[in-house]
């Protein structure tokens, strides 16, 4: 399995407050990598360092072998990484359709844009029904679907998802994670940050455990699922 | 030029105490020697410097120490000036009573303004006070009040009688009066901000939520701050009226508000005695620049403001504080 994304000794801080400490992480092409940890462990920060947004940091970030450490966010997006932020990050005042159009901002051709929108509507039929509606009036689950559809628009190689299960009812979470699996089967690698270890482990191929800014365990999902301490601490049984 | 350190002054080391008393000492020294060194027109300039410094002090208290902003402080200058003129010409009040009365009237207006100001976040407060500044000249000359304010022509103000008994002419007398009033005000302001009140105001400015949690009644302090600020600027307006011997709507055009703001920025917002640097700048600079080329004062004001915000946002006082800190005479605030 080739390495798609690599974090190399990455430390990050907000101003003077250190959040990540010498993190090493590898995301393999084709799989679903889950980063698990409690609140404040540094999961969101990790995703932000990949995009070089809001955090100061040391270390390197490599994507497909290319050093993207100092690249500005729009460039990173054009390389093929998109983001589903925590809290969905929808453009609340704009329509569902406009949200998707914005997702396709970096696409040069309107054909690709239309194809992307069709794909989003096929994956999430509810969005098609509500295409003219203001995004902020959608339910939490629908907004999450919208955020994922938007992230898919530019045919990315890797999607980063920040706590997609947050604040959603279990059935919706299951529905969404099933769709994530489908997206992954279609060839998009996923990097998933989650507090809900159970649902994350149900889809992940690789797992990384993070605690107060440090990676404490990482490896294939089956291995960690079988590990007793992991089960006790993260799954509670 | 003013210690903002949390330790009380009595426990500070002698060099720190010296540094904090220095501005006042310099002020007294310069102020007292001025009438003997300067002559004629220059004394009037010095008098103007003093009264503008007081006006800027008022703005500093509001914006620097309490984090509210006013683009319309010329309104309080106008209130102080017109109140003085009306009290003296229509009611025969002597100048030494008119000055504090004008200050009080200005303060009351300031307290009234302070109430809705509470509800406005900074950008909107700037907008509202901008509107006030633009409206002031029209408010002063409109038909409803022109009977009192003299309308477009304004009102004349008699200069105080010379204290010939101690050998001073009229200009020098005025200077001394203004100097004494300004000195008292500055000492009062300095004491105010060095103590509990000052710290409360700054807490409200920097961490409003924590300040509330600590039991500081933010609303009262903020309104009171508006009142105190407008008191000082109102008194400055009174002194200004006595100096120019004239008040008219154009004396308080929008440009004056901006001048006060820039004076505060130059001297340093978070400073009491820095207001003097501002005062010197806004009186002396146009005096010379007007002869250079038209529009020069405005050009210089604008350029200086932008440059200062880029490189020296704390103004002159910040520069001095930085130097003192490096020399070890002042705690970093």
């Amino acid at each position, binding site marked *: 399995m080739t390495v798609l994304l690599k974090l190399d000794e990455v430390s990050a801080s907000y101003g003077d407050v250190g959040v990540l400490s010498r993190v090493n992480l590898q995301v393999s092409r084709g799989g679903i990598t889950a980063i698990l940890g409690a609140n404040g462990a540094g999961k969101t920060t990790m995703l932000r360092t990949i995009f070089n947004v809001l955090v100061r940091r040391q270390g390197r970030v490599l994507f497909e072998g290319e050093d993207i450490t100092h690249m500005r966010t729009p460039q990173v997006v054009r390389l093929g990484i998109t983001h589903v932020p925590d809290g969905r990050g929808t*453009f609340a*005042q704009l329509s569902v359709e406009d949200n998707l159009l914005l997702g396709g901002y970096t696409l040069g051709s309107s054909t690709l844009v239309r194809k992307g929108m069709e794909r989003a509507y096929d994956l999430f039929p509810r969005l098609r029904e509500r295409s003219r509606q203001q995004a902020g009036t959608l339910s939490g689950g629908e907004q999450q679907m919208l955020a994922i559809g938007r992230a898919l628009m530019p045919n990315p190689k890797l999607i980063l998802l920040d706590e997609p299960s947050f604040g959603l009812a279990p059935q919706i979470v299951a529905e969404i994670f099933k769709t994530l699996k489908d997206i992954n089967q279609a060839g998009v690698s996923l990097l998933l940050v989650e507090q809900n270890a159970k649902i994350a482990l149900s889809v992940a191929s690789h797992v990384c455990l993070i605690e107060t800014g440090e990676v404490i365990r990482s490896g294939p999902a089956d291995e960690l699922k079988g590990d007793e301490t992991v089960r006790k601490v993260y799954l509670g049984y | 030029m003013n210690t903002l350190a949390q330790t009380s002054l009595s426990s500070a080391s002698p060099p720190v105490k010296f540094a904090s008393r220095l501005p006042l000492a310099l002020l007294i020294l310069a102020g007292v020697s001025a009438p003997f060194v300067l002559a004629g027109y220059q004394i009037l300039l010095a008098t103007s410097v003093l009264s503008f410094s007081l006006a800027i002090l008022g703005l500093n208290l509001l914006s620097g120490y309490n984090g509210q902003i006013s683009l319309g402080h010329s309104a309080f200058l106008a209130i102080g000036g017109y109140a003085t003129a009306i009290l003296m010409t229509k009611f025969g009040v002597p100048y030494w009573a008119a000055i504090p009365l004008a200050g009080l009237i200005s303060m009351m207006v300031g307290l009234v303004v302070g109430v809705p100001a509470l509800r406005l976040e900074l950008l909107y407060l700037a907008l*509202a006070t901008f*509107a006030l500044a633009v*409206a002031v000249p029209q408010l002063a000359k409109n038909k409803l009040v022109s009977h009192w304010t003299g309308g477009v022509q304004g009102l004349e103000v008699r200069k105080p009688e010379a204290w010939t008994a101690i050998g001073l002419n009229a200009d020098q007398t005025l200077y001394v009066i203004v100097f004494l009033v300004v000195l008292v005000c500055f000492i009062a302001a300095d004491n105010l901000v060095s103590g509990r009140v000052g710290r409360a105001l700054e807490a409200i400015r920097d961490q409003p939520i924590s300040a509330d949690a600590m039991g500081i009644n933010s609303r009262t302090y903020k309104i009171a701050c508006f009142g105190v600020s407008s008191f000082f600027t109102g008194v400055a307006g009174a002194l200004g009226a006595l100096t120019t011997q004239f008040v008219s709507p154009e004396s308080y055009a929008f440009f004056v508000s901006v001048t006060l703001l820039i004076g505060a920025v130059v001297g340093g917002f978070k400073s009491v005695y820095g207001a003097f640097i501002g005062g010197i700048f806004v009186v002396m600079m146009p005096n010379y620049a007007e002869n250079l080329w038209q529009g020069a004062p405005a050009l210089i004001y604008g350029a200086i*403001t932008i440059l200062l915000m880029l490189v020296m946002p704390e103004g002159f006082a910040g520069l001095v504080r930085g130097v003192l800190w490096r020399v070890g005479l002042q705690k970093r605030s």
Partner: protein
Amino acid sequence: MTDSAFVQQLITGLTTGCVYALVALALVMIYQTTHLVNFAQGEMAVLSTYLVLVLISKGMSYWAAFAVTLVVSFLFGVAVERLLMRRFSGKPVITIVIVMVGMMILLNGIAGFAFGYEVRRFDSPFDSIAWLKTGFMSPHEAGVALVTLIVLFFVYAFFKFTKLGLAMRGAAANPLSSQFVGIDVGWILALGWGLAAAIGAIGGVMTAPVVFLDPNMMLSVILYSFAGAVLGGISNPWGAVAGGLMLGVAENLVGAYLIGSDLKLAFVLAVIVAVLTLAPNGLFGRRLIHRV
């Protein structure tokens, strides 16, 4: 007062309101992506208006000068954002307000320096256009209304149908997410400033024939535009336009029938204070949630 006099006041108010609407629109261009009101918008417009005059004096036709000035104003707005305002991003609001006031004074000084403080005539380009002569409006008033409609149409089309317009709407709605879809928010801000400068220039050029040109020409106009933008809702371009029109009509009617023209500025002040303290979102504005 007779009916026709009333209608006359209404029409005059609407056309004055057109100028306020244009400048208010310019203010919103900047506000929606930065949450800042550009205090220097009026002075920028004044300089643009002087530029038209200079170009005409060098022999250009009015509309050629107008077009060139629009482009130059746009570029100037972009330059101001990229070279100056960008350095203050993240700084406290009070600092930025001071910078904008400083810029206002600086531009005023430049106008005074370059052109002097004497009031100058500025002929309306519409007086000579025959088909604008209607019975109830002066040619200039008709021209202003027409130009305003054209500008509003272009702005509407820009926002609705172009990619950049969508990007600006996105940046206004959610700057962080805009970055995540590949929008360079910095250049979008610059675009906003450029558009604001161009639209403001149109406002200035429409004003000069009526109040005559001097460096302080826009001071009261910008105040009315502030009031209009605030009344209509400064986060909503069309709300601000509506607010500007309303202020124009109100100014005329209140001035003519209620309080007389020498208290008009007090009226504007009252509008601003009332709206900001009682209904800060204005009539059509959206709630903006400020994070702690």
